C-alpha cells in the first residue's frame, strides 16, 4: 500500500475544460492595458510605454483608494509618471432614479451618494426643490438644518484625519477618529433615526424636532469636544514624521486650483477664502459668526490643517445655534403631491469637501424632469492627474488622501 503524497489533494490535476478553472481565471484579474483599441489620443498616449516604464494596476479593491476606485499607474521605477483613474464601479444612476421618482422620494436617493456626509447631499436637492416651489422654510427648521449639518461636517473631518494618517501608515488616529465619529453618529441617530444615511431633510423643513436624547448627548459631547479633538489632532500635528512627509507634498497654487474647478477646503488650502456659506449665503449663515480658515501653502499639510481649523469653526457655529434656537414649527405645510410649475433651479451648499449642488428642471409633473447632481469628490479626484505625477508611489497615495474623495459621490 502506497502512502498518499503530502498535500496531494491540493495539487490534483484539474482538466482545463472544467468550468471552475475558467471562472478562477476570469475573476479578479485586471490587466492594466485594456483589451480594446484606444478610443482617444490621450488613451493611446497613456497606454504606450516609454523606456523603462511599467504599468501598475491599483484597485479597485485596494485599501488606500478610499473605496472602489481603480487607478492605472504608469511608473518609472518608483516614480509616478502618469495615471489613468478608472471609475464606474459604484455607478448607480442616481440622477435617472430621481427623474423616475417623485420629489419627496428622490431625497432618499441623494443620501447614499455621499455616505460620510449624507446631509450635505440632501441639502442642495431640497434647496433646489424649495426654490422651484417658492417655499418659505421656518426659522427653527433652518437652525436645526445648520446644527445637524455642522455636526455632520465634524464627523466627516474626523474621519478624514484618521484616513489621512492611515494612508501614511499610522493606525492610531483612525481609531480616535472613529470614536469621534461614533459619538456624532449616535447623536444624529437619535435625531434622525439613522446613523449613516439620515434622509432627514424634507422639502420645507426637517423630518422631526429636536428630542431629549439628542440634546443630552449633544450637551455631553460639546462639553468635552474641544479638548478631545485637540488631543486627537495633537497626535499628528506634533508628529515629526507625519509633518515632514506632508509638507511640500502635492503643492497646488491658486490658479491651478481654479483651473481644476476645485472648491471647499482644497481650494482654501491654496489661499483662496472662498466659502459658499459666506460667498453665496443660504439658510441662516448670514446671522452666524464664524471665520473662514485658509492656508497659503497649498500642500497636503495645508489641506489637513485647514480641515482641523474648520472643525473648530463648526463647533463655534453649533454653540451659537444651540443658544439662539428659535421656537416654532419645523416644517412648512405642503401637500403630499408636489407639482412645481415648469422652471429651473440651481442650489449649492458648502459641504466638508466643497460645493455640493443640484440643478433641477421641472416640467409641471410630480417628478423632476432633470436632476443634475454635482459632487465635489468627482471634481477633486481628477486633480490627482495633475498632483500625482513626479511623486513616489507611496506619496501619491498621500496626495489622494489629502483631497478626501468619497467614491459614492464620484460614481453617482
Amino acid at each position, binding site marked *: 500500500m502506497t502512502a498518499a503524497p503530502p498535500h496531494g489533494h491540493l495539487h490534483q490535476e484539474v482538466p482545463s475544460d472544467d468550468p471552475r478553472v475558467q471562472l478562477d481565471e476570469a475573476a479578479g484579474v485586471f490587466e492594466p492595458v485594456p483589451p480594446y483599441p484606444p478610443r482617444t489620443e490621450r488613451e493611446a498616449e497613456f497606454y504606450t510605454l516609454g523606456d523603462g516604464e511599467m504599468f501598475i494596476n491599483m484597485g479597485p479593491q485596494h485599501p488606500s483608494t478610499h473605496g472602489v476606485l481603480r487607478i492605472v499607474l504608469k511608473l518609472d521605477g518608483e516614480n509616478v509618471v502618469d495615471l489613468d483613474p478608472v471609475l*464606474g464601479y459604484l455607478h448607480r444612476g442616481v440622477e*435617472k432614479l430621481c427623474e423616475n421618482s417623485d420629489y419627496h422620494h428622490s431625497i432618499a436617493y441623494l443620501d447614499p451618494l455621499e455616505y460620510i456626509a449624507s446631509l450635505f447631499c440632501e441639502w442642495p436637492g431640497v434647496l433646489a426643490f424649495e426654490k422651484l416651489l417658492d417655499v418659505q422654510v421656518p426659522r427653527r427648521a433652518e437652525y436645526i438644518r445648520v446644527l445637524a449639518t455642522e455636526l455632520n461636517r465634524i464627523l466627516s473631518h474626523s474621519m478624514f484625519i484618521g484616513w489621512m494618517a492611515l494612508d501614511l501608515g499610522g493606525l492610531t488616529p483612525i481609531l480616535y477618529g472613529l470614536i469621534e465619529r461614533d459619538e456624532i453618529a449616535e447623536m444624529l441617530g437619535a435625531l434622525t433615526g439613522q446613523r449613516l444615511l439620515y434622509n432627514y431633510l424634507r422639502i420645507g423643513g426637517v423630518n422631526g424636532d429636536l428630542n431629549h436624547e439628542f440634546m443630552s448627548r449633544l450637551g455631553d459631547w460639546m462639553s468635552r469636544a474641544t479638548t478631545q479633538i485637540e488631543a486627537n489632532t495633537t497626535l499628528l500635528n506634533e508628529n515629526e514624521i507625519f509633518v515632514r512627509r506632508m509638507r511640500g507634498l502635492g503643492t497646488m497654487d491658486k490658479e491651478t486650483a481654479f483651473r481644476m*474647478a476645485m472648491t471647499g477646503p482644497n481650494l482654501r488650502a491654496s489661499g483662496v477664502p472662498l466659502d459658499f456659506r459666506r460667498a453665496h449665503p443660504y439658510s441662516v449663515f448670514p446671522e452666524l459668526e464664524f471665520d473662514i480658515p485658509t492656508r497659503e501653502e497649498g500642500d497636503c499639510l495645508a489641506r489637513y490643517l485647514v480641515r482641523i481649523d474648520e472643525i473648530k469653526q463648526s463647533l463655534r457655529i453649533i454653540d451659537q445655534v444651540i443658544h439662539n434656537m428659535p421656537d416654532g414649527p419645523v416644517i412648512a405645510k405642503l401637500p403630499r403631491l408636489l407639482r412645481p410649475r415648469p422652471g429651473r433651479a440651481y442650489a449649492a451648499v458648502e459641504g466638508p469637501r466643497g460645493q455640493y*449642488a443640484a*440643478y433641477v*428642471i421641472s416640467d409641471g409633473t410630480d417628478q423632476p*424632469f*432633470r436632476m443634475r447632481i454635482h459632487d465635489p469628490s468627482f471634481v477633486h*479626484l*481628477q486633480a490627482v492627474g495633475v498632483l500625482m505625477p513626479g511623486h513616489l508611489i507611496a506619496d501619491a497615495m498621500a496626495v489622494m488622501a489629502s483631497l478626501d474623495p468619497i467614491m459614492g459621490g464620484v460614481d453617482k
Partner: protein
Amino acid sequence: MDAALKRRLEARFGDRLTAPVYQRHDETEIRIGPGDVPDVCRTLHDDADFRFILLADVAGVDTGTVMQVVYHLWGDTSSDWLRIVADGLSREDPRVPSVTFLWQGAEWMEREAYDMFGITFEGNRDLRRIYMPPDYQSFPLRKDFFLPDDAARSPGAGVRHMEQSHAPRNARPGETMRKVRA
C-alpha cells in the same frame, strides 16, 4: 436677482443671446448657440466686469426635442449664479466646443455628459465613457432610455438588461417620452 449683471450681460452679448436674459431667485440665465460657448466663457472668465472664475457645474440636458449643455459659474462681481445654456443641439448628433481650455477641471464633467447623453465636446482631449463600460452602446440619461422596472411607464416590460430594455415592449417613444420646454 442682480439687475446690474443683467444690464452688463445684455450690453456685452446683446446679439449673441438667443433669448432674453432670465432671472429668478439668485440665478441669472443666458442662452447662446453652441458655437458661441468658448468666446462667451472666455469673456466671462477674463473680463474685469464679470470675473466668473469658478466653474461650478457642467450638465447635459435632454429636453426631449433638443439637447442642451448647461454651465453654472460663480464670480465675485455678482451675488447671482450665472447659468449659461448652450441651446439647440440636435438630438441626432449633439456637438459643442469644450471649455477645458479655460477650466481643465471640466474634462471629467464633459466626459460624464458624453457618457450619459452622447454629447460630443470638441476639443476635450479625453472624451471617452467614464462610468459605463467601454462596449456600452446607449446613453442612459436620454429621455428615450426607459428604466426596465419603471412600472409607471413600461407596464409588463419586466426586468431585463439595461441594454436590451432600451424601449419597453409596448412603448411608443413619440408618445411615451417626456418632453419639456427648458
